[in-house]
């Protein structure tokens, strides 16, 4: 009877697919042929460069063999190809913890929470790093941490994120407007810079999800030949979320009552950015 390994080898020759390559690479590696597994990954990357999983398997092999720099490079490529790659984010977080770069580790752990919000292992790791459960104040402390000047980080800190800002900066006017329930300012990575009247933990996920919506919105606008995203509004049965953006750097995110007109809040949102020095 034909073995699974042989079947997959034939499959990638005759009907290649990224998933078949991934499974073949895993099986070859399990069989102890590390060089063979690496070759399968490299061939998969060549044929299916958008497939993030092949980069993860390759990085695992490289990590075990002590080629950490190459592994990190491949893991960063993996999360770029697939922002929901749990394994890649976890491995990157572990690597940054080992190399004493907790802000970078936190960034990847928080990214996991955007698609696996209650992952116990991730929540525990965040708690281990920060000494307390993930909250908005932790995000702000991390944004202002001296660790951010460490080399090899996956993303650059923004000038505004380096400031430790009082929670109400520039947003007081927004939430005192009729219909405004709470608001925050986030940087382009979805990190909270400032917030007002949002409960703990709510603001972190709100910022992270708003960043994901902004990213997808920009892609959708590009697909129809339009330019930079300036704002989006999501209206639901019991409320709405509005986001106003400035030059892909900062976003004001507002949680409001369902009937509030976006134009009413936009002026205040732009003012808040100016008051923070981002306008």
């Amino acid at each position: 009877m034909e073995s699974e390994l042989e079947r997959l080898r034939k499959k990638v020759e005759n009907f290649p697919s990224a998933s078949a390559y991934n499974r073949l690479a895993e099986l070859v590696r399990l069989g102890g042929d590390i060089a063979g597994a690496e070759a399968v990954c490299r061939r998969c990357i060549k044929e299916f460069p958008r497939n993030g999983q092949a980069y993860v398997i390759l990085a695992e092999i490289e990590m075990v063999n002590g080629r950490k720099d190459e592994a990190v490079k491949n893991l960063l490529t993996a999360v770029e190809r697939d922002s929901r790659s749990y394994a890649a984010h976890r491995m990157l977080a572990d690597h940054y913890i080992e190399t004493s770069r907790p802000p970078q580790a936190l960034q990847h752990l928080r990214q996991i929470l955007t698609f696996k919000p209650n992952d116990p292992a991730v929540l525990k790791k965040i708690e281990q790093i920060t000494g307390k459960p993930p909250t908005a104040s932790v995000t702000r402390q991390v944004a202002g941490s001296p660790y951010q000047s460490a080399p090899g980080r996956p993303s650059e800190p923004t000038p505004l994120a380096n400031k430790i800002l009082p929670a109400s900066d520039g947003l007081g006017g927004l939430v005192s407007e009729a219909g405004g329930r709470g608001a925050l300012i986030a940087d382009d990575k979805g990190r909270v810079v400032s917030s007002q009247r949002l409960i703990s933990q709510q603001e972190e996920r709100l910022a992270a999800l708003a960043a994901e919506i902004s990213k997808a919105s920009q892609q959708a606008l590009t697909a129809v030949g339009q330019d930079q995203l300036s704002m989006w509004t999501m209206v639901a049965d019991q409320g709405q979320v509005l986001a106003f953006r400035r030059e892909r750097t900062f976003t004001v995110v507002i949680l409001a009552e369902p009937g509030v007109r976006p134009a009413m809040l936009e002026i205040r949102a732009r003012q808040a950015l100016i008051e923070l020095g981002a306008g």
Partner: protein
Amino acid sequence: MQEILIQLNRVRGVGGSLLVSSDGLPMASALREGLDENQLAATVGSLIEHSQSLAKHLSLGNPRHLHTASEQGSLLLMVAGNGYLVVVIDSQANLTLLQLETKPFLERIAQRLSL
């Protein structure tokens, strides 16, 4: 279904329309030539998913529509029965008026999808 979208495109301010399933697959398209309906549908699928997560996280109930804008125009994503209608909007369009004019088309699409 495509006939409904072609009629919708005649509304002032509408520059094209697309009907997608909740998992981001195109169901019917009346987009301008040269636009990739599969690419747009895939990004819309991602928008639907994230909007639902956001509404759930904030206990806002079901998302009704998402409007995403640039200086050159905007996109309006609305629930249409089991599917989602995406409307490409010109920068000069009156959004409130356009939403009102789109409503009968949404009802027709929802009706067709329920058959």
